[in-house]
């Protein structure tokens, strides 16, 4: 396996405040990684750096063996897609119209959609299981449906790496499970995934690895079973004594029954 995404000593500061410091890790081709860490540690910033929306202050970010800062934005957008957490659409676009915007990196200013673009949009709608919603107005959809449409939008870029920012947030259990299925199905299709996850219980069984961001420590990466241990999480999330999450205990078993 080769590294598809690689961070080497990446730092990022915003308005003089350091958000990320000397972060190094890599995500292999075909992996599905869950990015976890306490609030405000910089998970979203890390994803935005990986997507090239932000530029790092120090260090190197490589995508498929090429330095991200040497890639043209449009070219980078063919390799990596970021599905944002917040996404507001001021006008009544249909699902199809929204997903079509994912083809922007492939279109010149004057040329219209070609067959290849239409196929990519169809495929994205199918993979995210929103084909039946295509003529619905995005703003009228439920939270779970919107989340899947956002994933389809990212997939229309035909990226090798799909970045998801808290994809299960604000979804009820049923919709969360649907979304996890979607993530697994995408990974089976060969899409490499890195998702910032808030709900740690949803990780085992869906993600092949966990990346833990901790204050003042190196990124810890490993199999979910390795990382999701009480003593590790207790320290990383600064849990009060004896109230740490029982992750590899009963909760996971309960969830596995549902899955």
């Amino acid at each position: 396996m080769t590294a598809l995404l690689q961070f080497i000593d990446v730092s990022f500061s915003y308005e003089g405040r350091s958000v990320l410091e000397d972060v190094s890790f890599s995500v292999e081709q075909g992996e599905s990684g869950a990015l976890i860490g306490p609030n405000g540690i910089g998970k979203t910033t890390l994803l935005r750096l990986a997507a090239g929306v932000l530029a790092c202050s120090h260090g190197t970010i490589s995508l498929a063996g090429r330095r991200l800062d040497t890639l043209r934005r449009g070219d980078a957008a063919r390799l990596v897609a970021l599905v944002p957490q917040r996404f507001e659409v001021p006008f009544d676009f249909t699902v199809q119209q929204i997903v079509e915007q994912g083809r922007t990196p492939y279109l010149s200013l004057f040329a219209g959609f070609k067959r290849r673009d239409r196929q990519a949009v169809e495929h994205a709608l199918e993979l995210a299981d929103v084909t039946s919603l295509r003529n619905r107005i995005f703003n009228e959809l439920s939270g779970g449906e919107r989340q899947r449409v956002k994933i389809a939008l990212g997939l229309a870029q035909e990226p090798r790496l799909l970045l998801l920012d808290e994809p299960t947030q604000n979804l009820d259990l049923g919709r969360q499970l649907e979304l996890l299925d979607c993530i697994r199905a995408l990974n089976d299709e060969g899409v490499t995934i890195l998702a910032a996850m808030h709900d740690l219980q949803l990780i085992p069984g869906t993600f092949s690895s966990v990346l833990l961001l901790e204050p003042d420590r190196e990124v810890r990466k490993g199999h979910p079973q390795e990382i999701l241990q009480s003593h590790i999480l207790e320290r990383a999330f600064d849990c009060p004594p004896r109230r740490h999450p029982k992750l590899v205990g009963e909760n996971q078993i309960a969830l596995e029954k549902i899955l």
Partner: protein
Amino acid sequence: METEITEKIHAGSAAPVDRPRFPARVLFILTLLLLLVALAFVIVLSVGMGATKIGVREVLGSLFNWHQSGGADSVILFEIRLPRVLASALVGAALSVAGLLFQGLFRNPMADPYVIGSSGGAALGAGIGLFLLPRFSFLGFSATAAMAFVGSVATMALVYWLARIGGRVPVVTLLLAGFAVSTMLSYSTYFLVVLDDNFGLRTRVLASWLTGVIAVPRWTQLEVTALMIGGGLIFCFPLARRLNTLALGDDYARQVGVQVEKTHLAIILTGSLITAAAVSLGGVISFVGLIVPHMARLVLGPDHVRLLPVTAISGSIFLVLADTLARTMLAPSEVPVGLLTAFIGGPFFLYLLRRTRREYAL
């Protein structure tokens, strides 16, 4: 197990999903054709209306035998009516498209060249040009036109800067910034009117600019403005596709390779150019850029590529009709067309504001 859930998803969402729709492309082409026919019809009708009524047959006869006509009717037709009707068609198209561009730029359906002060900036700029450089002319462009453009761009830049908070432009900051800037601009222009009266310097054109009156332009002026607006509209087509992407947010657009700042600048410059051209023909005409794109969106949906030509033609039709009404309803005196559009547009603006009231919070 996965397939089970996938099937469930299908079963769950199959029922009310696909609302039957008229194929969008067919609807678009039909609308466009219908509007073109309507525009031609409205122009012919409007040219015939006025103190001297000219029948449709005479109008068409004169129009298609351009050089052979020489009677009194054809003088009225070619020197007064036709230039004015064409001017109102141009102004309508320009203001409507500028409204569409600004709404896309601000991601906000309340933006309009009048509301955000772009028209006011153009009028003040033109007024200053008229005062300071009355004799300047370059390739048929007077200082007035150039200064109108400068005024419009400067105002847009100011409102854009004032109203943007963290990459978003909330309704409330946009309207407040637009209101404050427009008020300052229109009173500054009014100050020029006062100076004009005091010193008996020039024409009364400034006063009419403030209320929005489409004057009878000279043919050369019409040609130059048509070129400016036509050029601007052609430049709008690649921008329209970008507006669709920008509608999903600056961050998203940046992610898929759109050069957001440059695109914003291009939209501001193009929108200001066509607004300035419109103001140089008809002064400050309110709310056209608000009503027309909104109506077009109701029929065609929010795709800017399709909205652009439809908005341009509908804007022409709207303003030709409004201006015809303005010059005939109280004949022989004339109602400023800006007053008419304010009467129609004001309540419409309030209706829109009420509909979007959930966005008031910052």
